[in-house]
């Protein structure tokens, strides 16, 4: 069917629908004039009118739809992918979820500033409450980001980005984010890169940021005094090593740390402290980017009083660009 006949179909349909509508409206009068004094004729006219209206509407609708679809195809407007649709919903959701938190956090920071200005000694409970509110903010950020990445990982067609990325800047940003939390928990968080001028890598910056964030978040949960982030490189790969001096992971548990939903509390049958998603997401993202994530741990009861620690080592290619040949 060409465009001209489609337009005629559309207009014809509209006209028929209009006649049908007119018939329905006029049925009392037409019917009455046909059989004066009796309402018997009203109904058939109305029925016929409705039928004609529906037929006309359907024709016009088909005309509209086909034309609209053709224009869409011509202008190149493609249907959005499932991932884009979910990400869109997710953005709205994350923004709206964040609203109450932004308000609470804002009030908390204002209260803190006011207390600092007046120089009053804050009761212990109040100070603790303010700290708790402040420190839950990064948790919330990580949680929202984790769910977003989880949705994203479901999309098999999505490929990791390959951009020039300042890996040291990413480690520094994560360190900055977790330094206040570490301080609050009495931990010392340090990082360094070797060499100091680390240079650029080619890879997925947001993914790298997210993997390191999850590793550091995990380390800060279990560390007893120290968390270290170390960035190093060879000629072909770079490594991010996240070390903590926590109690360590028993050998029987090591195989499960990357399982979705696994948390150490699960085995101890106590209240869950975390979602168990962080490390699962970390390893899934790493593998998508063509890298590896490994864990080594020395549990507390194995190697004496102060030998316990856990190390996660992330390794990724320095240059993830496809080769020219």
């Amino acid at each position, binding site marked *: 069917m060409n465009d001209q006949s489609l337009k005629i179909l559309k207009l014809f349909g509209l006209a028929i629908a209009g006649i049908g509508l007119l018939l329905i409206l006029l049925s009392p009068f037409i019917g009455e004039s046909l059989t004066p004094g009796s309402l018997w004729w009203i109904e058939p006219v109305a029925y016929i009118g409705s039928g004609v209206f529906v037929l006309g509407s359907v024709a016009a609708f088909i005309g509209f739809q086909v034309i609209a679809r053709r224009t869409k195809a011509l202008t190149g407007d493609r249907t959005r992918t499932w991932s884009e649709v979910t990400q869109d919903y997710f953005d709205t959701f994350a923004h709206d979820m964040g609203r109450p938190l932004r308000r609470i956090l804002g009030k908390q920071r204002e209260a803190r500033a006011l207390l600092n200005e007046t120089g009053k000694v804050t009761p212990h409970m109040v100070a603790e409450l303010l700290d708790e509110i402040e420190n839950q903010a990064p948790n919330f950020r990580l949680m929202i980001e984790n769910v*977003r990445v989880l949705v994203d990982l479901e999309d098999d067609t999505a490929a990791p980005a390959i951009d020039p990325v300042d890996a040291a800047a990413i480690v520094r940003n994560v360190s900055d984010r977790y330094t206040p939390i570490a301080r609050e928990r009495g931990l010392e968080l340090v990082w360094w890169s070797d060499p100091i001028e680390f240079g650029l890598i080619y890879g997925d910056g947001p993914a790298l940021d997210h993997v390191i964030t999850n590793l550091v978040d995990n380390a800060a949960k279990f560390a007893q005094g120290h968390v270290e982030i170390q960035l190093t490189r060879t000629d072909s790969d770079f490594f991010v090593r996240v070390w903590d001096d926590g109690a360590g992971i028993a050998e029987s548990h090591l195989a499960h740390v990357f399982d979705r939903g696994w948390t150490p509390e699960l085995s101890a049958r106590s209240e869950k402290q975390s979602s168990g998603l962080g490390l699962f997401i970390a390893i899934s993202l790493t593998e998508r980017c063509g890298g590896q994530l490994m864990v080594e741990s020395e549990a507390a009861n194995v190697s004496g009083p102060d030998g316990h620690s856990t190390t996660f080592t992330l390794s990724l290619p320095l240059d993830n660009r496809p080769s020219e040949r």
Partner: protein
Amino acid sequence: MTSKSFGGGQKILVVDDEHMSDLMRSVLRRLETDGFKPIVVAPEGPHLTGDDYETQALFSMEAERPSAILLDVRFGEYDSDRFKGLSILKKIVERDSSMPVLMFTQYTQGPYRDTAVNASLTVSASVDFIDKLASPEEVVLRLRRLIGSAPETIKIGSVFEIDAANAAVYVIENGRRDLIREIQGMKLEILNELAAAMYRSEGELVPFSRLERFSDGEDSRASLRVRIRELKVSLGKAVSREFGANELIINVRNRGYRLVNPTN
């Protein structure tokens, strides 16, 4: 606790329709305490849309010549203004591609981040993204790095000041600056290196491998240890106190050293 006056009166243009919110007020306050001069874009009128902010922001950019711009993504609750910040960003970069812009956004990932990047990030543009929930300290740290200019002097707490260009370390007492003559040469180089790392980020330590070039002898690690000890003694003498193992310059688990602000 810490006294950092790094900003040096640099102007920061703040473009956010929620600039009156508590969250933004704490950011503005932090900018001021760190020596920046925030300039808030606040168009007037009864029904403000993203366009009003755009016009005013571009005007202020010309008029005020800020050192950096702090820009939100969302303006108002109109769906059409959902990504208004991105189009403002684009116009800013078109006008001045070297203008550092820090964007408040939750789109650190996903298609909108790509939109933002594609829309604005030409090779030379210096644009960074930060979550709106980030602490004011984090915002200022990022902004400082984005602006990129190293300060002429770095303060350690409110007690010491390092002037790298003039190779001098001062002790500050009652507003007076006194030169610490003992700290020169290698010791000053070490202190510079440590202070620069502290300035970049609080948690950054300087690994031994980096510092050992400022020491000599067969056992460079040992001679480095001696230099650090002498440095701490010299700094301590200037303020008539002794800095312990966990003060001022700390050896972190035999990985390297880092500088921390002295406690009072």
